[in-house]
């Protein structure tokens, strides 16, 4: 992104009533273009929000961190440079570069990093932080050759990494990857001496753009993809199964097809991290069954669900996979070696990320693996991630049985599956799965609103706060934590402003049971729901319609009597786990 483009993007305001996103940029350098680029990158990630960036005084990173802590902002970006750790490591202060000052510089860096750690920990208690470690080279302070990684430089780097290790353990604090920054911003093209000396801003504009880009990614990450649909021939393995047979296909070094082994290895890692992996292949089903039974496959066949193998259009197979997973196309990546197949699927599912497996270009194929890692990246592996494949399989059986017993009402079927709900409040310090659900659920989502760390914690800690975290299991297996509800009680009414439920939990009357539970436990006469229609929250609109005389289009209230008279019979067993 060029500076002129960043200025244009950051100057556009969505509309006069757009909600503001406040960011505090804490740094010791003069923020100049960094602030502009940060505003532009955040604007691209939050197109409906107006971005407002505050920053503090030049040369006072500790003081600015204190201000950050005291500011009521949605997030903080902290940019540290060597000059913040000791002014002699910058260009604007003259304190000597001789050998006699080196021990004092080291001692000062040690002191500064300890102080910054305390300030970061204090600030992160109320505000999520993205931190960038020093990005520009040390000045020529060492007497040893520049080509040599000398003891002085090593000591400073060690102190920095010790600091980073401790900082990375602070909740709600993320650190920009130096490796990623190195890959996109050449080290020798970062420092702008003229700008540093004339304005106190040490970055070339291209480098400032990259630093801002990575900070924006950490501040406002895109939701991770949920599922990957892969082709088989010349994608999961090298070769055409129909022509070369089960033993003819390969994924090994000796046959120059090792890149496919790496792809399988990555898919297994993604699956173990909670991603769904499905197959859409034009092939002979019997041959594929035989091939997937090969013991040397790095991705065991039981990790693949569903496996759609037939001779029909790829988009039809992809559609069946989406149906089995019950997730939207924009949460899915489709990988195939054929540009034609990719285009065909893209034409039916324009929101789906369709990526080519470049079978004849190992370098590009490796870059694809890196890209897939990024698309599915998450902060933590949760219990729900571990059981996701099994629960989707179980869910598929559930729906098959429910449909086969269509002569009987759903509640009769539900009574027989031993449905159990475990209800608890969301811990006030936050809960990773609850946070994830709020920020990635689209279909059963009351209003489409996303919450960042600070907003999520504020919702949990406001006066009269009510929260509900719902886990579900039945005889087909556990689904884990599948729903979150946030609201507050005001006089005799409960106001709900956040309510999401995983699409895996549909058709089980869980939403009815949640409202019934809240009416009974909180003893309120009505529940007000901050409903807003979105392009994708049809399921929640349909649910609410049951208690209204017209289809809802805005915030609404459900009276207790009406709810109780219209709800279906509910038989879920309730387990209360520390719900208050």
């Amino acid at each position: 992104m060029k500076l002129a483009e960043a200025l244009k993007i950051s100057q556009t305001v969505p509309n006069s009533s757009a909600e503001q996103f406040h960011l505090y940029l804490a740094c010791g350098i003069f923020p100049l273009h960094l602030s502009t680029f940060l505003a532009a990158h955040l604007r691209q990630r939050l197109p409906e929000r107006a971005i407002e960036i505050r920053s503090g005084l030049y040369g006072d990173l500790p003081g600015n961190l204190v201000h950050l802590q005291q500011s009521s902002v949605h997030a903080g970006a902290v940019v540290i440079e060597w000059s913040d750790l000791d002014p002699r490591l910058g260009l604007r202060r003259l304190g000597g570069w001789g050998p006699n000052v080196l021990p004092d510089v080291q001692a000062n860096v040690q002191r500064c990093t300890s102080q910054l750690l305390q300030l970061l920990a204090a600030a992160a208690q109320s505000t999520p932080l993205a931190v960038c470690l020093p990005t520009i080279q040390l000045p020529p302070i060492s007497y040893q050759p520049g080509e040599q990684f000398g003891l002085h430089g090593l000591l400073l780097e060690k102190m920095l990494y010790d600091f980073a290790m401790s900082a990375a353990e602070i909740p709600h604090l993320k650190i920009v990857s130096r490796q990623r920054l190195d890959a996109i911003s050449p080290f020798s093209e970062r420092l702008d001496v003229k700008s540093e000396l004339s304005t106190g801003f040490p970055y070339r504009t291209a480098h400032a753009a990259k630093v801002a880009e990575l900070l924006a990614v950490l501040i406002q990450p895109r939701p991770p993809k949920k599922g990957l649909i892969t082709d088989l021939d010349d994608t999961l393995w090298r070769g055409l199964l129909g022509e070369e047979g089960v033993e003819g296909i390969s994924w090994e070094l000796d046959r120059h097809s090792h890149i496919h082994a790496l792809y399988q290895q990555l898919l297994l890692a993604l699956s173990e991290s909670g991603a769904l992996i499905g197959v859409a292949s034009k092939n002979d089903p019997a041959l594929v069954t035989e091939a997937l039974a090969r013991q040397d496959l790095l991705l065991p066949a039981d990790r693949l669900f569903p496996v759609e193998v037939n001779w029909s259009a790829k988009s039809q197979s992809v559609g069946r996979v989406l149906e089995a997973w019950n997730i939207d196309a924009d949460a899915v990546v489709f990988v195939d070696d054929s540009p034609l197949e990719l285009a065909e699927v893209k034409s039916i599912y324009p929101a789906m990320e369709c990526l080519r497996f470049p079978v004849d270009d190992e370098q590009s194929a490796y870059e694809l693996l890196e890209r897939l890692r990024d698309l599915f990246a998450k902060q933590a592996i949760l219990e729900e991630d571990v059981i996701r494949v099994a629960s989707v399989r179980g869910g598929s059986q559930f729906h098959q049985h429910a449909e086969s017993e269509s002569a009987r009402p759903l509640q009769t079927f539900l009574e027989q599956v031993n449905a159990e709900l475990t209800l608890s409040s969301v811990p006030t310090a936050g809960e990773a799965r609850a946070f994830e659900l709020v920020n990635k659920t689209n279909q059963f989502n009351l209003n489409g609103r996303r919450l960042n760390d600070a907003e999520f914690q504020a919702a949990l800690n406001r006066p009269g706060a009510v929260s509900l975290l719902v886990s579900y299991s039945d005889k087909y297996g556990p689904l884990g934590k599948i729903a979150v509800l946030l609201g507050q009680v005001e006089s005799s009414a409960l106001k709900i402003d956040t309510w999401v439920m995983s699409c895996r939990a549909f058709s089980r009357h869980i939403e009815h049971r949640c409202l019934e539970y809240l009416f009974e436990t909180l003893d309120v006469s009505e529940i007000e729901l901050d409903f807003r229609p979105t392009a994708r929250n049809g399921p929640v609109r349909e649910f609410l319609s049951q208690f209204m005389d017209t289809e809802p289009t805005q915030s609404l209230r459900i009276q207790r009597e009406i709810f109780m008279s219209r709800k279906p019979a509910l038989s879920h067993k309730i387990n209360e786990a520390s719900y208050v």
Partner: protein
Amino acid sequence: MSSMEERLKECFTAVFPNLTSDEILRSSTASVATWDSLATVTLISVIEEEFGVTIAPEEYEYIVSFDLVNQCLQSKTVNA
């Protein structure tokens, strides 16, 4: 208007989005209230990035209007 002037106008538009095309041609630090020292630094960075030239800090005080910036740029690209 030359293509260089058109590109320079785009640079001005990025920094002073509220000025009309005509106002940009007549703009100076005296006539544009928002043209302060910070705007000067930003404008110069945009121009350096767009044209691949370097403008020295000691030149900043002389380039106080669109015409003068244009002349400065012409001299640098002719001499390049």
